[in-house]
């Protein structure tokens, strides 16, 4: 699918666009759990590209897997094909600019934060969400330039934080980082 240089570029690009931040306690999944055509937390990168001598079984086959980030972007892209009535008679298609905004938001997520899942509602709302044993959270696209972030702690008395109208841009990563860090 990609040559080694492209793959390395994707991996490095991923690392560079997700700035280092707090360790949220996330652990990458073991390579052995990766299955055919399933998304993976690992960037797609060959053992040779990172100068390791790992056995073949430790690394995903380059032509059969996509990174989780690519998978999420592909899911968002697929939402563009939805037409009016896609989820019941009254359902609305998403605005393409909201899908682009969600893709931009994905790129702005701070490193160390688990990657989210995508979601789309029958009224065309596009967003991302996180769910684990510590919190429930979602980021909903409000317009082409803004999103809102909600986090509900599952451990700390169901404490909640909501931040409205966050600009999707250079400062978004820091706001997301600081908001999750409060939980």
């Amino acid at each position, binding site marked *: 699918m990609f040559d080694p240089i492209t793959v390395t570029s994707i991996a490095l690009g991923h690392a560079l666009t997700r700035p280092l931040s707090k360790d949220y306690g996330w652990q990458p999944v073991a390579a052995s759990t990766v299955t055919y055509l399933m998304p993976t937390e690992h960037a797609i990168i060959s053992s040779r590209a990172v100068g390791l001598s790992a056995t073949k079984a430790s690394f995903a086959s380059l032509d059969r897997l996509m990174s989780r980030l690519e998978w999420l972007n592909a899911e968002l892209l697929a939402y563009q*094909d*939805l*037409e009016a*009535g896609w989820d019941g*008679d009254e359902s609305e298609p998403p605005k393409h600019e909201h899908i682009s905004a969600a893709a931009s938001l994905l790129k702005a997520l701070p490193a160390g934060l688990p990657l989210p899942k995508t*979601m789309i*509602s029958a009224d065309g709302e596009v967003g991302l969400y996180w*769910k684990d044993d510590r919190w429930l959270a979602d980021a909903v696209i409000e317009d082409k330039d803004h999103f*809102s972030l909600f986090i509900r702690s599952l451990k700390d008395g169901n404490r909640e934080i*909501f931040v409205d109208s966050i600009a999707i841009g250079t400062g978004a990563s820091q706001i997301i980082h600081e908001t999750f860090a409060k939980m």
Partner: protein
Amino acid sequence: MEECVNPCRIFFEQNAHNLKKVEKLQQEPDAIAWEKLSASAFSSGSVEDAEHILRLLFNPIHVDLETRKLKPTAVNDAKDKGCSVDRLKMTTKEVCVENGHVLAASKNQLTSQSLSPQRSVCGVTTFNVVEVRAILDARQNQAYAVYDTALENNKAHADICRLVLEKNKQDARSVRLQLMELGDRRFELINKH
């Protein structure tokens, strides 16, 4: 003898085809009290706390197929048209699923030329009514009500309706995630018919 006026039934009959009826319901000060009244002439009685209700899912886009868990959007219709469910004291899961397949097939015939995904019963979950009614917003107000919106051809039909206003963004988001969590506990995927 003069029949008692039932404001709950009047509301739901007048808004039977209103796809935004829940938004109107949110303006009714007695919406929670109406849970004790019957919402439909076809119903055998209001939905009790001890009941279990079943929700069919027709679109896999609302399921995370990797974890086999519901996405928050799976229960989104509770905010506008009502989240359709069936009362399990009046029907069974098998009957609901079979009826769902029939409904999906008839809808698909009408939209066969569309690029949008075809409908099919892809999952099912059940809720304890008392747990749905126990979901609270930040001000400790009941967030969801459950009404016996029985239909002529489905006496078991009921609706979960969100009582939190959309403009209260934090509460709206909080209670959506809480309802998703409840639904996730007993959610199961169903193979394509």
